[in-house]
């Protein structure tokens, strides 16, 4: 299997996973953002260390929508 095909397969996966991670962190650091439980540090740790599930939990349950 050639390298171009491997990249074509792997890159979309990386884009989604890394994209969600950085997007969640960017959203978390917005000054007006309020989070469930009140602690942004805890949410940052969840986003970074709970692989894929962390950003999902943050986006679907962690944010307090005003």
């Amino acid at each position, binding site marked *: 299997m050639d390298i171009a*095909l491997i990249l074509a*397969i*792997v890159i*979309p*996966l990386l884009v*989604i*996973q890394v*994209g*969600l991670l950085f997007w969640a962190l960017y959203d978390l650091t917005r000054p007006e953002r309020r989070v469930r439980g009140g602690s942004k540090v805890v949410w940052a740790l969840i986003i970074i260390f709970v692989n*894929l*599930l962390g*950003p*999902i*939990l943050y*986006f*679907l*349950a962690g*944010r307090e*929508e005003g």
Partner: protein
Amino acid sequence: MSGFGLVLGKELREQLRTMRLVVVAAVFAFFGLLSPVTARYIREIVDAVGGGQLGVAIPPPTVADAVAQFTKNVGQFGVLIAILLAMGAVATEKERGTAALLLTKPIGRGAFLAAKAVAIGALLALALAVSGVLCWVYTAILFEPLPVAGFAAAVGVLWLSLAVFAALTFLASVVARSALVAGGAGFAALLVLGIASALPSVGPYLPTGLWGAADALALGHVPDPLAGPVTTNVAFVLAALGAAWWSFRGQEL
């Protein structure tokens, strides 16, 4: 149902505004892409990790492995997402007081609940469709094309299994005053149904039992039983939504 369109429009706009739609679609897309890749390269991954010293004999990958990975990944993560989406649907609106505010307008309580349930179902359907298309394409590249009608039916059956967990959590979200309690009830339902699915006589009729039926459908086979489990799970969804409406119509907000 008065106000159904109004609440549905509000829910769909909220899914876009809060980016929930994009996030859920992205996660489902991830598993749609990942499943055939994992199935195809699991031998190489195990060899790379173990340096060829593990001595684990993994049979050559087949298209059935890709399908099994897909139903397992999308089923497990999908249930989690279905619970997370439904847990705050009504409870959060009650916590904030926005449900009471919204219902002072000419919006029926049935329409309010129906619109929210439809919005969650539509989001799961869209995300599953994205995931299914990507999985089908990657499976065709890495293995062979799957029968389109069978695979579409498998995705439909997977949606039904997720809809059961979403409906049960939605019911909890209506009954409870806190989204966390509703989420806990959703996970409790997942635990109980997961344990019960180990019983051979009832397992195929439970939502997690539908994943096996989805495997067979995706490969172009007709599982036996199929009509019974599908009907049972549709009944689960309708019963949960009916109970939610029954509880909500006389509720003090």
